[in-house]
Each structure stands twice: as C-alpha cells, then as structure tokens.
C-alpha cells in the first residue's frame, strides 16, 4: 500500500519536469522573436463591414433600374400580416401588374405555397437559421422569379424588426408593418427600421374594436422617428384602407416606368 503511494509521487515529479522542458522551448522561441525585432504599427483601415453586401445591393439596384421594376423590401415582426397583405395584393392586382415575390423564412415553404396560388412567380428563400435576408441570397434566387419583365418585385423579409434593417437588398422602398395586436410603442423600441422605412403600414385595423391599440398614438410614434414616412392603415382581411395601399403601389410603379433611360444593369441568371 505504502509503496504504491510513493510511486505516484514519483510520477508527478516526472510530469513537472516535462512541463519545465516545455517552458524552455517556449523561451527559446521568445528569444527568436527578440532577435527579429518585431515592430508594432497602428494602421488606419476605415473599411465598411457592410461593403460586400452594399456593393452587391448596388448591382441589384442597377439591374432593376434598367428593367424599370419597382422593388419593395417588406419588414415586420413575425405575424404582423406580411403574407396576408401580399395575398390580397396579388388577388387585386394580378390582372394589372406582373408581380414577382421572393419570400424569406427560417424554415418551411408555407408562405411560398400560400402565395403561389395567385399565379405569380414566387420563390421561397429558406435561410436555415439566419434572421434576415442578405443581397447574395436575393442574387441567387432572383432568376426563379424574374421570368419576363416584372413590374414589381416584392421581397418579404424574415419576420424580424432588428436584423433586416441593416441589410440593403437593392430595393427602392423599405416597407415596415405594425399590426394592431402589437404595442403602439414598437417604433420607439425599434427605431432603426422605422427610421429607414419610407412607408409604415398599420395592419389588422379590423381588430381595433377588440384591442386597446391607439391608432393616433402609433402614428405619432412613427412620426417621432421619421416625420416624412408615408403611413397607411389597413386590413387585409376586410379590405378596409386597402385601396390607398394599391394606389400608393401603382403610383410608384408609374414613377419607376417614367424614369429616363437607365444605364444597362448587370445580368443575374
């Protein structure tokens, strides 16, 4: 018994020695560096982290400018009614405008299936965990919906008010949605997206009698973040307020068409 204990102490000593040996090696490496006289330098980089995304977004913008396709990037919390809005929009405008849709979700093709029944080109982008769409994802999936000339390309972003706001996808307008079952203070909580969006939509106004949502306060909060935002209040379910949205959309399509001759943009196929 006693002998056994002694042996284990010896073993420990051996380990210690090998650690020392390692340290010696390390020291000699340090000495080598000293001889070389390494130099510390501070260098200015000033390189935008979003540059790669923004360069591609600019290419996409030029591509759509040449084709006179109005492009919208729809952003909201999950469940604010982006897909319902698009369903109704396709139903009402499919005979007048050719609308293509790219729809982003973390998982499932459910939204693409819902939208495909209206006969428009629709492509689901499954991000497998990524919380937003980036320009390279749009570039990759664009050929699936860009059959012939589109009047409008609508990108339905992943349901999220934070991450998508920082990624330019080359769109003409960012459209943010806020439903009456959410708080009126969402614009104050997520100022980034409400500042960048040119259009803010208050959806599900048919539910106003059943909620404590204060429409005036919501509008004031949106204006306090961006006082030039176009605010539209509507219900996709009942159609209330929907004509104003369709007018807005068709007006922007006309403006895009009447732009002067655009330079030839890059191809994505």
């Amino acid at each position, binding site marked *: 018994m006693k002998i056994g204990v002694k042996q284990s102490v010896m073993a420990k000593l051996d380990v210690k020695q090998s650690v020392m040996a390692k340290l010696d090696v390390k020291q000699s490496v340090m000495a080598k560096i000293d001889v*070389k*006289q*390494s*130099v*510390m*330098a*501070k*260098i*200015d*980089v*000033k*390189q*935008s*982290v*979003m540059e*790669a995304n923004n360069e591609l977004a600019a290419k996409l913008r030029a591509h759509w400018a040449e084709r006179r396709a109005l492009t919208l990037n729809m952003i909201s919390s999950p469940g604010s009614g982006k897909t319902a809005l698009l369903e109704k929009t396709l139903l009402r405008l499919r005979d007048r405008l050719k609308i293509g849709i790219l729809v982003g979700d973390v998982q499932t093709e459910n939204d693409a299936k819902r939208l495909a029944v209206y006969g428009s080109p629709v492509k689901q982008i499954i991000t497998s965990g*990524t*919380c*937003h769409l*980036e320009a390279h994802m749009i570039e990759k999936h664009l050929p699936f919906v860009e059959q012939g000339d589109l009047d409008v390309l609508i990108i339905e972003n992943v349901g999220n008010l*934070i*991450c998508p*706001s*920082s*990624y330019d996808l080359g769109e003409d307008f960012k459209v943010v949605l806020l439903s009456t079952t959410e708080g009126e203070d969402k614009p*104050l909580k*997520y*100022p*980034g997206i409400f*500042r*960048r969006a040119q259009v803010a939509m208050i959806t599900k106004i048919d539910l106003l009698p059943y909620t404590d949502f204060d429409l005036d306060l919501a509008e004031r909060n949106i*204006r*306090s*973040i*961006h*006082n*030039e935002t176009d605010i539209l209040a509507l219900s996709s379910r009942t159609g209330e307020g929907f004509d104003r949205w369709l007018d807005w959309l068709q007006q922007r399509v006309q403006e895009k068409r009447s732009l002067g001759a655009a330079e030839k943009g890059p191809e994505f196929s």
Partner: protein
Amino acid sequence: MHELSIAQEIVRIVAKEGASVHAVRVIGASVSVGRLMAIETDNLLFCLDVLKKNDPLTEHTVFMVEEERLQLRCKACGHVTVTGEFLFACEVCRSQGVDVIGGEQLEVSCLEVECDEDWRETECDGEA
C-alpha cells in the same frame, strides 16, 4: 443574431488587411458601430472571440467596439444634434425634420499589428 454575420465579415476584413501589410499577427482591432445599426456590443464581441480563432493572424486579436452616436442635421435651422438617445428632433428648434448624418456607421476603423523588421524597412519608413 445578425451579429454573427457581421462578426464573420469583421474577422475577414481584419485578416485581409493584416495580411496586406504582412503582419505577423493582429494585436488589436477597433470597430466603430453606429447607434442605428442595432448591434448588441457584448453579443458582437462574443461572436468575434469565437470566430477569430479560425485564423492564426487574428487568433489573439483583442477587439474593441466604439459606439458612434446619432448625429442629426436640422433641415430648418441647420444645427447638428449629437445624441445617445433615439430622439429624432433638433435640440435647438425642436423640429422633427432632420437628416441622419451619423450613427449608421459600421466599419473596421483601425488595426494594431505586429510586423517583422523587414517589413518596417521596406514599407513603414522607420515608423515605430
């Protein structure tokens, strides 16, 4: 969690810029983050510390995040308001007609690198 995508791009830029000046390793990197970019600093630093280990150049890099405050130029009176709050109004005339001129930055601003002496003689003009 867009911090992960952003951290990936930051590490890529730091490694690329470090290599372009023939650094042996990058000791420090400063990242400037605008208030409007909705980036959580601790989350970003956590992602950077995980991702930096993939490249020997950035393996020991210490990242620093500087916050760029919101800067608003008033369309009515021209005054520039600098604020840490998300109040989109001129602090002088109270007008809400303001242009955002700062707070949307997201850049790798500077690096501290370790280079060997050969590099100093050829490219650094003796700067220590």
